[in-house]
């Protein structure tokens, strides 16, 4: 199916464990983004990527690692999860040659115990 999909949708882990959230899009959009959303906050940008092998930090990158070896995939890794990383994570994509609109995945709810 066309679109942007995230996995897992729900994850519970423990402090100190490594966690990877996956994001896959089928539109061949050049830009991809990872945001986190906490209660009382809008979306805060963690990392973004303008194309394969090009990534850049957003507002809150500490504790996260990304890679983009293929245009369609943009995984987000928490190398050593902390309780403060409990959040809902949204992956999004856009094509700057289009409307600039972001297309969001359904979100991954991560709980760090």
């Amino acid at each position: 199916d066309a679109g942007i999909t995230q996995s897992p949708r729900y994850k519970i882990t423990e402090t100190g464990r490594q966690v990877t959230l996956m994001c896959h899009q089928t539109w061949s959009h050049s830009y991809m983004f990872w945001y986190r959303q906490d209660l009382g906050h809008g979306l805060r940008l963690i990392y973004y990527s303008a194309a394969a092998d090009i990534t850049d930090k957003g507002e809150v990158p500490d504790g996260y690692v990304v890679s983009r070896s293929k245009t369609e995939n943009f995984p987000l890794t928490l190398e050593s999860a902390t309780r403060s990383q409990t959040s809902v994570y949204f992956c999004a994509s856009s094509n700057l040659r289009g409307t600039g609109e972001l297309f969001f995945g359904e979100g991954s709810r991560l709980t760090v115990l």
Partner: protein
Amino acid sequence: EDKVVQSPLSLVVHEGDTVTLNCSYEVTNFRSLLWYKQEKKAPTFLFMLTSSGIEKKSGRLSSILDKKELFSILNITATQTGDSAIYLCAVEGLTGKSTFGDGTTLTVKP
């Protein structure tokens, strides 16, 4: 650092009321301002604004941008309970990065 401020943070109205949501911004190399609606899941796109003074309209929703004063408003007329949601404003820079405000939580009571 790019900054987007939305007001009010929350709003409770009754069906039929008209509401105005505000978004002010500071961004380097402005490209566009976008409004999204978020219900229980992911945000969905409402409007993209790039030019001052040109109103975008979709049904009961409308929005306008003032690039001189660096703000936008989103109007919703004749509100319905289905309009209850978080409304997010985002500003996109020339790097392609979008910065979001904290959102306005709108509750429409029957």
